[in-house]
């Protein structure tokens, strides 16, 4: 079985300050981990993915995430928030043993960026 917990349902930051979105996972097997972003009334867009290569993963729009196996975490960061980063973010886990390439989604973190 696998599961994902996003520790904050809402995060509020000021433009130009760092963003941290926290994610913990559990998986019986070697996981693949993803972060997706969803802007209002849009589909989900892949930000970045971890698939057992480098533990520090760089994604689009200046985001990066670090896989820490000992802490079962995959936190998403960005050094300087932009107004366009206001959206909902989903941490996602997949296991090579999960049939049909199923993904398990966290509950989402909604990011508000203040000017």
């Amino acid at each position: 079985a696998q599961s994902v917990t996003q520790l904050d349902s809402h995060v509020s930051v000021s433009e130009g300050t760092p963003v941290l979105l926290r994610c913990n996972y559990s998986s019986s097997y070697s996981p693949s981990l993803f972060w997706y972003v969803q802007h209002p009334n849009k589909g989900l867009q892949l930000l970045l993915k971890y698939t057992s290569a480098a533990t520090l993963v760089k994604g689009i729009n200046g985001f990066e995430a670090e896989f820490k196996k000992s802490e079962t975490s995959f936190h998403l960061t960005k050094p300087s928030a932009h107004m366009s980063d206001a959206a909902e973010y989903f941490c996602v886990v997949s296991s090579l043993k999960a049939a049909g390439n199923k993904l398990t989604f966290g509950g989402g973190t909604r990011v508000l960026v203040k000017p």
Partner: protein
Amino acid sequence: DVKVTQSSRYLVKRTGEKVFLECVQDMDHENMFWYRQDPGLGLRLIYFSYDVKMKEKGDIPEGYSVSREKKERFSLILESASTNQTSMYLCASSPGVAGIVRSYEQYFGPGTRLTVT
């Protein structure tokens, strides 16, 4: 660029109606998925398909069925719509050789917001 399209962005149906949601992908992906998204619950998998005419139940299949007659098209069917099926429905696809498990990322369509009254 991978493109996943869904037949409608917004749909309003009456209780008891049969509803078809269509999804088409243009990247020759083997795997296709239907999710529903509700506030506070994230995305929940309804059904998925890893090959033409093949389907598997997800976490919440009750009240839904699916059809995949062609590789590029995956349909979600609500046999008799109910108000608790009011939701955002998202279709996704991913590559993967049929029958072999891989953890590929999924590519999502824009979603269909369905309201059942």
